[in-house]
């Protein structure tokens, strides 16, 4: 077990997280990365890495999750961005070098990067 990071840290994280977790689920941003064989082979893990780096750099608090193959294998790596009150947007062929612009435009400026969109779902 590593010395510096210990399970004891988690108690503090838990206490802080519980305060904001309900708010976060209602208003937050979730970024989903496809992680099937097709995604992995196309570089989805590296794309996820770039997303985590960019969020860290810009201090953006967003959930990031991974899912298996969703059927658009030729468009991998696929990245979904879902924000409360907005349609869910799926971007295709998202490579690490595209991530800074994606985060800047979509999450910060609120503009969908039209030329990279492969799908859009509006929820009721």
């Amino acid at each position, binding site marked *: 077990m*590593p010395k510096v990071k210990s399970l004891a840290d988690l108690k503090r994280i838990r206490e802080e997280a519980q305060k904001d977790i309900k708010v976060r689920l209602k208003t937050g941003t979730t970024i989903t990365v496809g992680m099937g064989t097709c995604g992995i082979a196309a570089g989805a893990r590296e794309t996820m890495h770039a997303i985590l780096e960019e969020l860290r750099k810009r201090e953006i608090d967003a959930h990031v*999750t991974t*899912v298996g193959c969703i059927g658009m294998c030729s468009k991998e790596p696929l990245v979904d961005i879902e924000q409360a009150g907005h349609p869910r947007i799926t971007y295709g062929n998202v490579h690490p070098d595209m991530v800074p612009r994606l985060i800047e435009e979509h999450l910060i400026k609120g503009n969908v990067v039209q030329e990279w969109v492969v799908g859009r779902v509006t929820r009721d």
Partner: protein
Amino acid sequence: MRELSLHILDALENSLEAGASRVTLTIEEDLTADRLTITITDNGRGMDAETVKTVLDPFFTTRTTRHVGLGLPLFAAAAKRCNGDLTIESEVGRGTTVQATFQHSHIDRAPLGDIHDSLLSFLLAERPVDLHYVHRVNGRQFEFDTADIRAELGDVPLSHPAVREWLSEFISEGEREIK
């Protein structure tokens, strides 16, 4: 795939698709015996003997259940290139064990690569699965079980940004210590 950790991530995703709630991943690097052994055991739905036979065929997939595709044939080919092998043991309703072995020093052996990113990708899965991870390098060991981590976190998910950061540092540090 360029790294063994990408094959590992892919195999872990298979366990997820098989409905497992618990997965054990062991990476054993024995430099004296010149072996690298990767073992993934899950408690997913498992496969019957007939299916196990066909799983290594690249033209076989269970599309409807999305259990296996090209992933395992690629993993098996990587192992066989390096004086190793890939074996699958499975039982319906009990789970599956996939084990890949490699000659550690083999010139064609892909590097283990970024195991940190593979673990994180798996731990951030939409449907959370408990992972018991053991990485041994010549007797030194880094081990964790997300069941212990979750017990501390209560209803706070692993994908919470603060937890994610913690996990990321925790794994980096653990891997660094056994290098």
